[in-house]
């Protein structure tokens, strides 16, 4: 079927071996005028080399300050079907487990009340419903909450929809119940999710083990990463079997099939703290020096497993490069049990949010505030003592600056004398 707009430029995006979102939109455009005009406005943008969208606005659903992102086309004369093209964010179930019935219902709802286009999932983790008009927003919200038992997710200066890895549902390494934690936090902090009062966005992400499959350490203002505080469990017979080539290393992730593993080269020499010894018969791990990098466990999953005294490390301050540069989270609580009802963790969160809300500049992420005011001030607010594990780069760059008043004997610095010795 011939579409309304000629699109020679964006048609180029259909070439090559990759799946193309243009082809996807064209399929829907055959029955949805909104998608025809979406292709048109995209082609127009490619011709003009500038965008024709403006985002943001007062549109939303009653009582919620997030979950809807207003979007308008600045050429409604040319593309009237996308004059409004609002995005709705829907809170995904923890670990994104669905049955086909609910997926069909979501698609049917969006086919009827929106563009039919979805993004499963956005980088925050939500289901993204792309493109609808202002008068459909309340209707979609009503149907989501009443018929599908789903809610909108976070956007704006809110707590964003908490997200997590598959956790214990499918992963033998998960040290914590990531789904239970995420569901609990989502329910506990409904007010923060829907009624914006933070200086900027705030993200919780929960990974079951230090492999960190949701990249919590790179993305979350508060990363909850499963860990253990006893020893890595070793099956010596299985280690020898890896060395003899009876198992495929890395769970066959590299497609080698069963092949002899050079344990010294592939495991011991790649351990970042060199805390593993292999004498050809037995493996010894000096667990007190282990930084939980997971490399040895990843290479020999039949032989090594995380310990049994499990909990989580809490890290704070990750963010993408907007304003200051990109930052990874830093360890704030080296170990916490993370068992329901998570009271200790929630006390920590309350103190953290109080400090951020009282001291944060507009559009300042928690990590930027810690950078601006110092880790020492953050720890004071949290009533936590500095700890050698609160480090920027493991075993390399401790960055806590002690207050002279907190150190027995203290010290004084003579600034004039210092400058004489350091004149440049």
């Amino acid at each position, binding site marked *: 079927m011939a579409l309304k707009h000629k699109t020679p430029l964006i048609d180029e995006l259909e070439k090559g071996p990759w799946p193309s979102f243009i082809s996807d939109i064209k399929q829907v455009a055959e029955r949805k005028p909104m998608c025809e005009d979406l292709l048109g406005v995209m082609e127009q943008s490619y011709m003009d080399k500038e965008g024709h969208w403006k985002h943001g*606005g007062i549109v939303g659903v009653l009582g919620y300050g997030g979950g809807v992102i207003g979007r308008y086309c600045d050429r409604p004369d040319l593309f009237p079907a996308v004059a409004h093209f609002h995005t709705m964010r829907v809170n995904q179930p923890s670990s994104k487990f669905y049955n086909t019935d609910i997926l069909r219902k979501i698609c049917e709802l969006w086919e009827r009340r929106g563009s039919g286009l979805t993004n499963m999932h956005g980088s925050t983790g939500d289901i993204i419903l792309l493109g609808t008009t202002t008068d459909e927003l309340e209707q979609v919200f009503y149907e989501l909450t009443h018929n599908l038992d789903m809610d909108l997710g976070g956007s704006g200066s809110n707590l964003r929809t908490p997200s997590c890895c598959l956790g214990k549902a499918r992963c033998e390494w998960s040290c914590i119940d990531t789904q239970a934690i995420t569901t609990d936090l989502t329910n506990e902090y409904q007010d923060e999710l829907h009624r*914006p009062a933070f200086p900027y966005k705030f993200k919780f992400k929960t990974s079951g083990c230090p492999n960190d499959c949701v990249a919590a350490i790179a993305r979350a203002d508060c990363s909850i990463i499963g860990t253990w505080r006893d020893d890595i469990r070793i099956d010596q017979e299985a280690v020898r079997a890896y060395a003899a080539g009876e198992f495929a290393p890395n769970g066959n992730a590299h497609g080698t099939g069963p092949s002899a593993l050079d344990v010294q080269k592939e495991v011991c020499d790649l351990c970042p703290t060199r805390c593993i010894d292999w004498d050809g018969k037995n493996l010894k791990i000096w667990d007190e020096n282990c930084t939980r990098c997971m490399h040895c466990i990843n290479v020999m999953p039949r032989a090594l497993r995380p310990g049994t005294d499990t909990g989580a490390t809490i890290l704070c301050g990750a963010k993408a490069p907007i304003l200051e540069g990109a930052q990874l989270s830093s360890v704030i609580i080296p170990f916490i049990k993370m068992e329901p009802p998570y009271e200790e963790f929630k006390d920590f969160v309350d103190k953290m949010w109080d400090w951020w809300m*009282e001291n944060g500049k507009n559009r300042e992420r928690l990590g930027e505030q810690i950078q601006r005011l110092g880790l020492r001030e953050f720890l004071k607010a949290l009533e936590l003592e500095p700890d050698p594990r609160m480090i920027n780069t493991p075993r390399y760059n401790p960055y806590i600056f002690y207050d002279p008043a907190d150190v027995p004997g203290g010290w004084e610095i003579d600034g004039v004398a210092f400058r004489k010795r350091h004149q440049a």
Partner: protein
Amino acid sequence: MSEEAKQAIIDFMKSKKGKTKHYFNELCKAVPDLKMRAAKKIINEMVNDGQLKYWSSGSTTLYLLPEHADVGKEEDGMN
């Protein structure tokens, strides 16, 4: 106290000529005796009562008075 605080917030917003959108912490400055969380409760009530509206860019949220929140104008690109 609650009604006084609400009025103080409205007066503050009206006093800012030429500026219609305000960050949350700016509204809190209108009620300096309240902690942020107490201020949030009042501001939420004002939103529920229709005395304030949200404006969101998608990444940041601001507040405005209803007289500045005209959906029709926004759709026409005037807001």
